[in-house]
């Protein structure tokens, strides 16, 4: 599956990233190479292998997969907003949406 400039453009759009033409020209072959590398896996027949989804490493399997419904202390407003670039009136403030 070759990656085209149109693919890269679309991915950039979905990621809300602006991308210059020279970046597009540079990134397209790089991303194509990554996909090609991963595609080596297609040589293996995995039709009888169940897809691995989440937490299936030996460590993962020992981790509790669910918890009881009990509320625990949260960070609180002050701490939650401490690293925010533009907190205001107890909220995260962002450029107007909608």
């Amino acid at each position, binding site marked *: 599956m070759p990656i085209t400039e149109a693919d890269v453009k*679309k991915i950039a759009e*979905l990621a*809300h990233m602006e991308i210059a033409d020279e970046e597009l020209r540079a990134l397209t072959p790089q991303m194509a190479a990554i996909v090609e590398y991963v595609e080596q896996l297609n040589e293996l027949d995995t039709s009888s292998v169940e*897809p691995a*989804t*989440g*937490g*299936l490493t030996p460590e*993962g399997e020992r981790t*509790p*997969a*669910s*918890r*009881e*419904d*009990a*509320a*625990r202390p*949260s*960070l*609180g*407003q002050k701490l*939650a*907003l401490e690293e925010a670039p533009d907190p*205001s*009136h*107890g*909220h*995260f*403030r*962002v*450029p*107007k*949406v*909608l």
Partner: protein
Amino acid sequence: MIKEGWEVVIGLEIHAQLSTESKIFCGCSTRFGDEPNSNTCPVCLGLPGALPVLNWRAVELGARAALALGLELNGRSVFARKNYFYPDLPKGYQISQYDQPFSERGELEMMTSVRDESGHAREWKPMKVRILRLHLEEDAGKNVHEGLPETDRFSYVDLNRAGTPLAEIVTEPDFRTSWEAYDYVNHVRRALQWVGASEADMEKGNLRCEANVSVRRTGEGFGTKVELKNLNSVRFMQKAIEFEIERQIELIESGGRVSQETRLWDDHLGETRVMRSKEEAHDYRYFPEPDLPPLVLPEGFAERVRAEMPELPEARRARFMDEYGLSYPDASQLTSGRALADYFERAAKASENARAASNWIRSEVLRELEAAGRGAEESPVAPEELGALVRLVDGGKISGKQAKDVLVEMFRTGKTASAIVEEQGLAQVSDAGEIERIVSEVVAANPKQLEQYRAGKESLLGFFVGQVMKASQGKANPKLVNETLLKKLKG
């Protein structure tokens, strides 16, 4: 009414907040109305490295909701990331479910009715609705666009709601009128409240719905569908669908084309308007959530959940008809909420006269509760006390008319029926000797009327009854008075 030659196709999506104490993937409280952003932690803020852990209660409540709506639980389901950018979604993806949802293949039977011009239901009939799926997911936070400074330039984000557990319920496109959609949402609301899965209160935003609406000329294939949002009450949804049907038909008839888009309902203007067209719509790029293992239900899980659920409204309605001899409309009304159904059942047992208990509740009790703005579970008159009142009437202690006044007094003071009857000296006189004495006095005091009666003017019986009741201050047992008078008047 839908225009001749046209058919409408409607599908609904409902998001219901599940009634847990804590969020679906972290231990933050789901409490409503707290200080903005106070119930947050690294998981629901989407901070790097934080990992989700599933709240098992959300699974149980989701299962209750699914079973109450006639869905089958999938023994294994998989969480997936739905990717999009919006300020209320800090991780840049919502943890939802995609190709392997929690439950599927539902079918429920609900009651629906055509409405007249003023919106009154005419004739209720059963309707089957197919439900495609119910899956579990997390809610996003809330964007605030008003009530804070400079909202022309800024939006504000409150993440207290981010991570609240939701059940998303998607129907097949089975509705043909806005009222069918209306009846369905009310049916789902009641079912979720009934089994305790969700408060399902649209005003609080813990039940939200979206409608997909398209029109087609009768017999043709599906038309282009429009998604309706911002439907903040069931009535708004019904109005929005109605508006949209007319808009689409007019558009096509005047040579236009419906475009696939999302529209918002504006209740002030009474119209829908474009929010975004599908061309700029999202590509969600779903993929399995690598931070969560598949959700595998333990052996016997569905049976256990089912056993913990209260008897469902439809089953209870059927039983009320069977066991207590109630009519379909009466049984339906009494099963409109679980608390009311419980109230009726306790009153029916205490009164030993279920029909009478049903009549009292549907008229007097509901009227009093409504006036006080209370639900059946908060009634100042316990169902056992209503039962006692019914027994006083059935035992001939007080008349039905007196009982109505007594009940009003019970609601006002919280006293028992017998205490009020005693205090106000309302008990009927059923003592034959006492009645005989009053009757004799009345007959003796009205010799002229007695003469006329005996001469054949039998209509004067009513006059004598009236005099006796008056003399007894309305307390004489009317049946005994009649019998005694008839004897006396004959001479």
